[in-house]
């Protein structure tokens, strides 16, 4: 963390080390890329990340596979996944922004209990909530519906989002609120015109988190959904490498396509990422 520039050999050395480390970090990803473009169903035995032969066969097979009703399966699953992930993000952010605002800017009885419970509910292993959730969604008539998944995912994402956003709201300067209040703005207007615009980095980060929660989940999705047309991408992807028979080529192609949207989001959000997560803790 030197402010001055160190000597040249150190600079070169650090760059070299960083390059090696980054290569190591990216190696598993490169293996997936390789498998996606290399012919054959098997996980190849050679450790080289460069394919011997290149083919688009896996992508073609993946994209042209059809479901029971003749629909393009991958496209259908992508649409399901996108719908679920976007809805989860919207619902999750709407609910957590309002809740975080209440917890950050107001003092009321039960506030501490609410804060604590938002932290505590994350501790019960999600996989064990599956059985009660199944019965609950059944009672609500939301089994085998994407809306049910959206509700479950957004409530899974809320605790983390509330905590992150509350930290972020806490870090906004108090004077702004005082000034707005003096100007006669009500709490809703303050929330809408001051808090939300200023908290954009925090919101971007929690949006990313909610999106990923929904985009990556497969245990609940494969239990609750019983309609092929509604399957999300991970359900389909996971089933391409079953216990007995695995098509790693299609899996790799699918994994690549599935990871791309998340990577793109990371790229868009990355300037907010640093700071969006930690503002509350650092500036408080």
């Amino acid at each position, binding site marked *: *963390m*030197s*402010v001055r520039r160190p000597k040249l050999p150190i600079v070169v050395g650090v760059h070299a080390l960083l390059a090696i480390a980054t290569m190591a970090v990216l190696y*598993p990803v490169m293996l997936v890329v390789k498998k996606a473009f290399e012919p054959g169903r098997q996980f190849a035995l050679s450790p080289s990340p460069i394919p011997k032969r290149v083919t688009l066969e896996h992508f073609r097979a993946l994209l042209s596979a059809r479901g029971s009703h003749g629909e393009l399966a991958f496209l259908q699953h992508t649409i399901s996944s996108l719908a679920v992930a976007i809805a989860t993000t919207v619902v999750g952010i709407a609910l957590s922004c309002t809740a975080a605002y209440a917890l950050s800017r*107001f003092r009321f009885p039960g506030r501490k209990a609410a804060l604590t419970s938002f932290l505590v*509910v994350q501790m019960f292993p999600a996989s064990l909530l599956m059985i009660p*959730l199944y019965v609950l969604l059944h009672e609500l008539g939301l089994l085998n519906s994407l809306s049910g998944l959206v509700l479950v995912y957004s409530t899974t994402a809320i605790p983390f989002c509330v905590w992150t956003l509350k930290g972020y709201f806490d870090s906004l300067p108090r004077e702004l609120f005082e000034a707005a209040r003096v100007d006669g703005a009500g709490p809703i207007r303050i929330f809408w015109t001051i808090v939300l615009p200023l908290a954009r980095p925090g919101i971007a980060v929690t949006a990313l988190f909610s999106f990923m929660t929904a985009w990556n989940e497969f245990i609940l999705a494969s239990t609750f959904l019983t309609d092929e047309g509604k399957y999300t991408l991970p359900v389909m992807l*996971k089933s391409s490498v079953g216990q007995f028979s695995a098509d790693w080529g299609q899996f790799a192609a699918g994994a690549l396509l599935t990871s791309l949207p998340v990577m793109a989001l*990371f790229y868009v959000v990355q300037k907010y990422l640093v700071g969006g997560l930690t503002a509350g803790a650092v500036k408080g």
Partner: protein
Amino acid sequence: MRAGDLRRALRDALLVGALLWIAVTAAFVRDRNKDATQRALRHAQAAAELVAIGDTPPTPTAAAAIVGAPVASKEHGFLRRRVAHTPTGERALGGPTAPAVDKLLYDAAGRYDKDGPFVAMLTDGSERAVAAVATARGPAIAITAGPEPRAPVPWLAVLGHLGLMLVLVGVGAVLGGRARGVGVALGLATWAFPAYFAGGPGLALAMLAVAAAAGWAHATGATDRAIASVRAHKVALSFLAPAGVAMIVLVVVPFAVGLALGFYDHHHGRWTFVGLANFKRILTGDGHALSDPLNFWFILGVTLAWTFVNVMLHVLFGTLFALILRQPWLKARGLWRVLLIVPWAVPNYITALIWKGMFAGEYGAVNSILSGLGLDRVSWFSSWATAFSANVATNTWLGFPFMMVVALGALESIPKELEEAAEVDGASSWQRFKEITLPHLKPALGPAIVLGSIWTFNMFNVIALVSGGKPGGSTDILVTDAYRWAFERGEQYGMAAALGTIIFLLLLGWTLIGRGLTKGDEEARP
């Protein structure tokens, strides 16, 4: 008398009354269904008894006959034919195109052979009852035609009751003073009557208790204060409400159910209350020696080691990369940062499956690299240390970017002037790290470590997909063991839930300690 008194008394009575109304209605509906069921069962029984003596039942039946003993097919012992005897003649039951009601007779006869005479509701949701009574020629079986009519809702009584309640509450309020509370209590106490008829004395007593409590709360002004408090904070509460309601319905309720299931035993879809037996079984190691990978304490030890090692490595690599990435002289900082975040963006089940492939057998990429470097190939999943390391490597890979980003955020908040001043003062880099960087890292890393340890503690995908518990379940952590209870040991959901409760308590304890250590609690701030 003041109008405000009457309004407040009615408000309290109606608020509490609404709750009581829900409880009584639920009891009424249940009671009415039970009554219909019992009538259906009685009709079926009576009909079957008439069939047994050769009469035709007076009530409508879907089917009624005496069913003979099964005759097994010569080739296949499990294919068994039965004959139904009715006053109008005989017919063989079964065959590819046999009518549906015949199957009900056939199945009832099978059940009679196993359990003896019985009367029960059909399980197909049609609300029909089936009864079988013994005769010399075999069971006489009758099946009712359809749902029994339900008793009507006594609307007059309901209206009268509501009127009585309002009158009592009103009279109390008019009299004023102590009578106000008594009026509310007496008015609500009227709910005990319908409660008694719909749900029995227990429910009636509960109603009386609620009524007394409501009256007392009204008299002492507790309800006024509670409502005033809600009014005073209505903005905050309405901001909190959407998330609060969603969390209560979809997280707190399943969570409470999950906790409760830990006290039950599950076997073939039946739940039996067993008290603390599941917990006892887990905590005493379930008959396994302490060194056995199936012993709870062994798994707990593995889980703690797993969490500690992972979080430590996450923080170590995360901070290290963050410290390098913030050097102003570093070329292409943005690019490095994006590349190093990539593992976070890859869905973790994909990561786990890739790493599993990389560690696979003697041919995985890791072993190929090792042998390329002139080292011995390692059979990764045949010993605890190597299997555990494989899991840790995977999880470190996918987890360090989060810590890196948190650390970067914390480091950005260090004022440049502070560092420059320290450097001018001739502080060594270690001193600067200790005195400036570390204090800025701590407040951000503290909560991140608590959060990260919760995630790692419950990291199901990596363990399940990479080592799968190999060798011999010794790399399982508590969540994967809980999963095994639920799905690999005869669906013992109760044991799984009990283990989930223990996991929850452990994490709760850790968070309390962790928050004390890091002072991450915002209440500490002005």
